[in-house]
């Protein structure tokens, strides 16, 4: 059974639809990154998954159960499997220890058990001796770690983190990344976190869910181009300034074009093809990733194509080699 399943999920603030996801399935285990620009709906999705917001329409199933429709007891029990860390965390006006033990206290966990869990959580985030510190005597990075410890003390099955590394220095970011990786390494936890740092998502995520203006984008984070759409004769052309793409007719106000890496075919020759876009470029990177090969080609803009190991051997591609990118007009998604 999937961990989360969203069906026809819509969330509106007033008249504005900020999230519109027909279907989304998140399986248990590993690290799932929600990526997208500011305002893409990452935080809203995390808040919906954590139950802090209710969908305007549609539903979210947690382990097959619709939390909104379940009994208060069941809802409470399932909610308590989740650890949530909000963006720019708030610390209660008490000690670090008081903050980290909050979730345990509301669950009625007392005495040595509570102390042990608080101690362990603080140790896990590298704040072993910070228990007695007051909430206002902490740096931004330390606040973030206390908030993480506060969620970890609950020993959650699912950890939902909203931009956990948005306001921290690079040293803290590295530390937090290590903490998250070690948590995943210790097993039995699913971490879902939002970030606008594409590299970070690629580095940490077992799965990347990309959002753009509240909608799921099929691709990961590659091949996102900004520009404008023009109608020239019979064709619709998306122009980035560095590259032109023939696209299927779409919204005239589209400003972003996204191409799934799997939809870009690489060829040594400009073969006769049904693809409307045949673009010449130079290979700038080849790397293995999650069992497939990712090839970066500079053709004005940098394109990423994902092919199989067998295709790579057949293509015989190397750095600096000139290749043609074959892209069907309908593979270019406009937003």
């Amino acid at each position, binding site marked *: 059974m999937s961990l989360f399943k969203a069906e026809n999920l819509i969330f509106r603030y007033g008249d504005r639809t900020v999230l519109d996801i027909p279907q989304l399935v998140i399986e248990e285990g590993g690290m799932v990154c929600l990526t997208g620009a500011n305002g893409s709906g990452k935080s809203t999705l995390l808040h919906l998954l*954590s139950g*802090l917001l209710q969908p305007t329409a549609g539903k979210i199933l947690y382990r097959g159960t619709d939390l909104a429709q379940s009994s208060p007891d069941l809802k*409470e029990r399932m*909610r*308590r499997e989740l650890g*949530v*860390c*909000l963006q*720019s*965390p*708030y610390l*209660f*006006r008490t000690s670090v220890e008081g903050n980290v033990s*909050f*979730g345990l206290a*509301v*669950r009625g966990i007392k005495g040595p058990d509570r102390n042990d869990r608080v101690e362990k959580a603080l140790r896990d985030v590298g704040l072993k001796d910070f228990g007695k510190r*007051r909430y206002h005597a902490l740096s931004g990075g330390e606040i973030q770690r206390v908030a993480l410890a*506060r*969620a970890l003390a*609950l020993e959650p099955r699912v950890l939902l983190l909203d931009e956990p590394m948005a306001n921290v220095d690079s040293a803290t970011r590295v530390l937090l990344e290590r903490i998250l990786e070690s948590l995943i390494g210790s097993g039995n936890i699913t971490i879902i976190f939002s970030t606008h740092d594409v590299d970070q998502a690629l580095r940490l995520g077992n799965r990347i869910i990309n959002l753009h203006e509240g909608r799921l984008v099929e691709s990961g984070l590659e091949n996102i181009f900004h520009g404008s759409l023009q109608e020239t004769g019979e064709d619709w052309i998306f122009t980035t300034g560095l590259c032109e793409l023939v696209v299927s007719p779409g919204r005239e106000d589209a400003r972003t074009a996204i191409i799934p890496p799997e939809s870009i075919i690489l060829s040594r020759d400009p073969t006769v093809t049904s693809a409307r876009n045949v673009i010449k470029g130079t290979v700038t990177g080849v790397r293995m990733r999650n069992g497939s090969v990712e090839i970066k080609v500079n053709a004005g803009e940098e394109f990423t194509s994902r092919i199989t190991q067998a295709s790579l051997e057949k293509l015989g591609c190397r750095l600096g080699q000139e290749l043609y990118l074959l892209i069907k007009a309908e593979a270019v998604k406009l937003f």
Partner: protein
Amino acid sequence: MHVCTGAHSPFPLLGKQSMDYIFDAISGAFALIFSFDTEVYTIVLLSLRVALSATVVASVLGIPLAYVVATREFAGKDLLITIFNTLMALPTVVVGLFCYSFLSRRGPLGFLELLFTPSGIILGDVILAFPLIVGLTIAAVHSVDPRAKATAVSLGASPRQVSVTILKEARFGLMAALFNGFGRVIAEVGSAIMLGGNIRGYTRTVTTAIALETSKGEFAFGMALGIILLVLALMVNFTFRRLQTTSRR
């Protein structure tokens, strides 16, 4: 006829005899305070008992109501808050008059026989402290960072636990509400004199006694009570400052 010369007085407009009159009153006041005069301390203890009881009752009723008003959205909310803010400055004699009309023998609550009893004074004081505590608690809850609620919910707190958490976060403002409520009722005279009747040894409070004794020319007695009232006010403020510092630490 007494002529005020002001020749050797540190206060040029006051004569020596008039200054002596004040100094005599002050020294008489301290004599009463340090001789632990039974009547003075009976009055002070009654005032404290009445003011504390009224503050506790007004808080028990007012804080939950203020929390609900502050955290829920409903039609007329702004109007309600404005009414509470206006009632903060409710004249004490108006409350006295209002309660008197209800508690007098011919009034609808006359059967309770609360008029001219300490409970009657407490009732008036509750009505005086209630809007002040409600208004200041609403402001205190509003001042809490909205992330506090989301954080408590996200950590699994039940609605009741969330309320307690928000009120704890607002504790500095809450303390201000309680101390202001206490300060208002211990210092008021209008309602206490109308509902208590200033009966010696029974309903005579510090403020009603000051009013009465001064009118009788017992200036030293009035002064002694005035000094005690000021000391009490100072103690309350010191305690408040101390709690404020602790809560911010």
